[in-house]
């Protein structure tokens, strides 16, 4: 491969954004080649310059960007090229897939037209043939009924279909290079699996070179041939996917790999990278990673000299002064951690019993209720003192609604919620206020959860003040204590939320939730908006707090690895119902419900060797509209085991004697027989 001429060759690419002040470099001299028939992944945390690099390659950066270096696609130099040349390159050699399929298509033009527009413009396609060609392209990306779909508008497509259409569009001209910038970040795991496999297939069919940008190491392991790891505008390490995952040489790569929760180390404490990634404006001198680095922190060289990328192995390069240094074995550095375990569970704290939450759908002249969105349709759960119960499921399955209903923020339609044995649903508002003190909520989006006009001290004090307990609880001293508890300094009191990073804000959110000394925290996707390194910090914090304060968690997430890492028990939700519920290890080792099995197999595993060997179940379609759920078992249209019976009759919950599993399926695989799918992964992991 290295002998062939690269499709793309980037040399010393530097991009700075000027604006009014002095230009700030966000990409700082990077070089790489991409060859035909390979998938080249760029990974890195948010803000590391991945998107800017990809935009620079296609000449799509805004005019405020100052680009230098060289980018050659085929034989054409992109840097400084004229508009005509750029247009030509884009039409001939380049295809682009962007992150958010909801916005990459023009909402007012028909999908078919958009797909072939480029080809028609460049005279490769006669307008009279456009329709046929559009349908053909849609068929190639597995869209059913492509002829009529081509005539539809983007809003009539589901998210996954849109991304397929974008792939069809990007590949329409058979470009030599395809750039996909986080093509699946906005999608659910099951849909992500569909799209990734499609992308892989089309790439193989067209022999194109693909640059795939992602921050998800699982995706990298799944799909990449070669990998570049970016940090603070630089490539800090590059190599084949196996090298990167098996013998990472840069401390950042290593730390990154260790900070993701993995099924093979559920009892170990996560290895978080301390601190924050630097912003382009606040780049430290020397190696930009040294303030967070375990080996470079103390060394003078790292503080003064920025290391250059240099070859380490055959194909591997790393930018570290001490890349050859053997590290301590990873395990040794992990402080032992007794993760959650079923045994310690005590009395039941929260009981959710057949909870139903239906939202009215209104239509017609008088806005009458014409139907109901069955957001939550019979959920039963128990959380015991000090344990973590997780709720997983695809987007829209009703996780947030369940949590908010438990908190009393959304009125329940039916069922019951009991806290310490007392029903919460029929409480008067003052009693409800009282009850809420025991139960607190941590929100998903750390940017939206804090009142931006209050100083953080007030944000944390607010629950106390609302309950008139501020003085009783100890006033400012209590706030300082809470700050300390979540690892923040009281020196930060006067600052506003906007002055904090996402991870810090999430800590503030947690501190606020702890202010009233609750017994139960409801954590709604507490880490999904955070970068992996920060995510690990927060997860560790949560585990520490749980131990220290004997907290019970209702932990909501769609990230199966995180759930596996955190939970005692796991409930899998689909379309408003819990389809399977079991102790953590049981569910991961022997998933019973076909949906659980699909979910687990769809989740990318950050291990390329395993990725290549395991068999994946790729679910068809996407989660149905909860306003019109399918009859019978709601999962049947996507299920690989469904039959006539499933189509008609909704399954009831079955429990297995001797196991903690509850499952709602007519055809569960026997929990006593370990699932083949998962077993493989476990082996590979060990």
């Amino acid at each position, binding site marked *: 491969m290295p002998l062939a001429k690269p499709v793309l060759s980037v040399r010393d690419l530097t991009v700075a954004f000027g604006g009014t002040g002095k230009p700030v470099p966000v990409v700082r001299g990077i070089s790489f080649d991409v060859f035909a028939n390979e998938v080249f992944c760029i990974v890195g945390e948010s803000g590391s310059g991945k998107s800017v690099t990809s935009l620079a390659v296609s000449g799509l950066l805004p005019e405020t960007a100052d680009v230098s270096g060289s980018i050659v696609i085929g034989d054409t130099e992109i840097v400084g090229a004229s508009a005509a040349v750029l247009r030509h390159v884009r*039409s001939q050699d380049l295809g682009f897939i962007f992150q958010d399929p909801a916005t990459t298509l*023009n909402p007012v033009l028909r999908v078919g037209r958009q797909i072939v527009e*480029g080809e028609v413009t460049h005279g490769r396609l006669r307008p009279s043939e456009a329709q046929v060609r559009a349908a053909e392209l849609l068929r190639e990306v597995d869209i059913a009924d492509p002829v009529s779909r081509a005539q539809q508008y983007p809003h009539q497509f589901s998210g996954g279909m849109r991304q397929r259409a974008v792939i069809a569009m990007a590949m329409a001209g058979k470009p030599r290079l395809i750039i996909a910038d986080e093509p699946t970040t906005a999608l659910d795991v099951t849909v992500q699996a569909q799209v990734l496999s499609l992308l892989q297939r089309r790439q193989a069919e067209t022999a194109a070179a693909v640059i795939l940008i992602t921050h998800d190491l699982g995706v990298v392991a799944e799909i990449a041939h070669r990998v570049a790891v970016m940090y603070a505008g630089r490539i800090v390490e590059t190599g084949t996917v196996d090298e990167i995952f098996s013998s990472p040489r840069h401390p950042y790569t290593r730390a990154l790999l260790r900070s993701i929760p993995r099924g093979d180390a559920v009892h170990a404490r996560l290895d978080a990278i301390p601190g924050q990634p630097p912003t382009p404006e606040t780049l430290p001198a020397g190696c930009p990673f040294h303030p967070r680095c375990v080996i470079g922190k103390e060394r003078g060289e790292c503080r003064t000299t920025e290391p250059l990328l240099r070859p380490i192995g055959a194909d591997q390069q790393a930018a570290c002064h001490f890349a050859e240094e053997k590290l301590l074995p990873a395990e040794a550095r992990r402080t032992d951690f007794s993760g959650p375990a079923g045994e310690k569970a005590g009395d039941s704290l929260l009981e959710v019993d057949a909870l139903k939450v239906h939202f009215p759908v209104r239509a*017609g002249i008088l806005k009458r209720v014409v139907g109901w969105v069955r957001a939550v349709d019979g959920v039963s759960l128990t959380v015991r003192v000090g344990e973590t119960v997780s709720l997983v499921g695809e987007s829209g399955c009703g996780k947030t609604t369940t949590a908010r209903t438990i908190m009393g923020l959304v009125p329940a339609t039916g069922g019951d919620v009991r806290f310490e044995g007392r029903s919460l649903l029929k409480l008067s508002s003052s009693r409800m206020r009282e009850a809420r003190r025991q139960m607190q909520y941590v929100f998903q989006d750390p940017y939206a959860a804090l009142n931006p006009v209050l100083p953080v001290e007030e944000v944390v004090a607010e629950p106390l003040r609302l309950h008139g307990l501020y003085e009783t609880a100890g006033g400012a001293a209590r706030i300082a204590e809470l700050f300390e508890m979540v690892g923040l300094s009281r020196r930060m009191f006067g600052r506003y939320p906007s002055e904090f990073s996402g991870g810090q804000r999430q800590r503030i959110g947690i501190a606020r939730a702890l202010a009233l000394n609750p017994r139960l925290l409801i954590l709604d996707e507490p880490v999904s908006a955070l970068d992996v390194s920060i995510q690990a910090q927060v997860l560790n914090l949560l585990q520490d707090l749980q131990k220290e304060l004997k907290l019970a968690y209702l932990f909501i997430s769609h990230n199966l690895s995180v759930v596996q890492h955190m939970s005692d028990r796991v409930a899998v939700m689909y379309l408003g119902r819990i389809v399977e519920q079991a102790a953590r290890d049981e569910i991961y080792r022997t998933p019973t419900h076909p949906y659980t099995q699909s979910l687990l197999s769809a989740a990318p595993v950050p291990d390329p060797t395993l990725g290549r060997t395991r068999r994946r179940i790729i679910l068809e379609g996407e989660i149905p509209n909860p306003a019109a759920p399918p009859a019978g078992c709601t999962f049947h249209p996507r299920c690989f085991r469904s039959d006539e019976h499933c189509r008609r009759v909704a399954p009831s919950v079955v429990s297995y004697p001797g196991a903690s599993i509850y499952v709602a399926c007519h055809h569960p695989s026997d929990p006593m027989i370990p699932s083949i799918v998962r077993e493989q992964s476990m082996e590979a992991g060990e």
Partner: protein
Amino acid sequence: MIGYVLRRLLHLIPVLLLGSAAVWAIIYAVPGDPVSVLVGENATAEQIAAATAKYGLDRPALVQYADWLWRALHGDLGTSIHASEPVLKLILERLPATFQLAFLATIVALVLGIPVAIASALKPGSWVDRILSLWNALTLGVPTFWLGILLILWFSVEMRWLPSASTYIPLWEDPVAALRSLILPAVTLGVYVSGVLARFLRASLVNEMRSDYVRTARSKGLWEWQVVGVHILRNALLPFVTIVGLMMANFIGGAVVTEAVFTYPGLGRLLIQAISTRDYPLIQGCIIVIMVIYILINLSVDVFYAYIDPRIEYK
């Protein structure tokens, strides 16, 4: 869609009821009555009483309102006290003049507004944009009555090119005379509205230009004119339609000041005269008609919008 239109029409009912009741309440709160103007200043008490009875103004206010409402429901807006002609007739006679001015003003506004918006949105922050923004601020900030006065000063008093006051001449009868008479008020109104439109369109263009689909379009190697003309403009013009409709609707009763400057016989002036003579049925009629037209224009705009925007399906 039909259901949607029906629902919107149903919405008309409370708005009109509320509006007419409010107008009636206001009318009764306003001191003065139509009779005093009518009978003249030498009238005796008996004459006043006779006239008051003749127009039914001696009945309780609620009875009068109920009576008016009942008749209005049957399409009868009553008879003007001052002109002793059916209110509807008076209004219908003014409407063509009003529509003609609104139409021309809208054309002026579009002709001035759209190019300005596109030119300044193409390069936000450039000197072209800054100059056009300044022009835009001027069009918005210069009060129509002052602009009208300046135009009259220059074109009528100074240059003697155009009449200083406008009359209604139907366009189809004598287009030249009609345009001569209308051009100053149409420009006065149109310039102001062009500012509103340009500002709106510029904002929505700039907003659209940042959209992902524009980057997608560029990444396909399209010509810049395709990107702007097909992709951006289409999206930006959608909400623009609503604003244009709103503006037109506003012209119907709201061009009062311009009508006053150019003494143009539009609906707004009719209403002002009606207010000053306390011609109750005429006031009520004008306001109801203005409201109905406003709502109907808005409804048409929304329906049209739904028609051109594939994302919207009114049910």
